[in-house]
């Protein structure tokens, strides 16, 4: 059985969050690896990449059927392999939720164009269904 989640984020909203809340925003929402992958050569953060990752976290939350579960943003990591292909790395509460739901495979796709970034996540529930 498949479930899907989608989310759209305005890139300017991320730019504003970085400007207003700076490191508190970055460290509360993104994993250290995400921040490394979203920095430009001059050390600044790329709001387009961050926005796409935030969209992926929300899309994953929806695909997992999170509802009102407490899932810290950092427990859904959105990382890129050497070719640049993104994947999800669940830890802590997000990993526990996926296990409880019987979800054994996740796929993610990111995009950004103009003022927006978006992500879609597909989750597959295995034969050993969770709650």
């Amino acid at each position, binding site marked *: 059985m498949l479930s899907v989640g989608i989310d759209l984020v*305005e890139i300017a*909203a991320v730019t504003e969050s970085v400007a207003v809340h700076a490191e508190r*925003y970055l460290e509360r929402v993104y994993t250290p690896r995400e921040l490394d992958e979203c920095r430009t050569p001059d050390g600044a953060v790329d709001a387009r990449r961050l926005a796409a990752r*935030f969209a992926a976290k*929300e899309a994953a939350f929806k695909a997992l059927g999170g509802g009102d579960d407490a899932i810290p943003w950092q427990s859904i990591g959105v990382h890129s392999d050497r070719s640049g292909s993104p994947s999800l790395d669940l830890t802590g509460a997000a990993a526990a939720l996926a296990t409880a739901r019987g979800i054994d495979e996740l796929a993610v796709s990111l995009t950004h164009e103009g003022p927006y970034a978006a992500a879609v996540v597909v989750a597959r529930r295995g034969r050993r269904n969770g709650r």
Partner: protein
Amino acid sequence: MDADRAAVIRGVIGEFGRLSVDVDTITDSTDLFGAGMTSHASVNVMLALEDAFDLEFPDRMLIRSVFESIDAIAAAIAELSGEHGG
């Protein structure tokens, strides 16, 4: 509910909630997500509330229902401030 606290919360939502309606037109029980607050905006609301009330929302409170209305936020802040029965 503490009127001053509600006013501070309303101010934070007005500044960071990115509602699709004027914050002065909503009630303390209005569904903020229904009024246009995105999940990303809720992060900024949370961080601004932490600044305004000098507290930190623990992981267990990072749930939609805590930030769904001014009343709900006020209840969470009361709990974090060690108040009971409010």
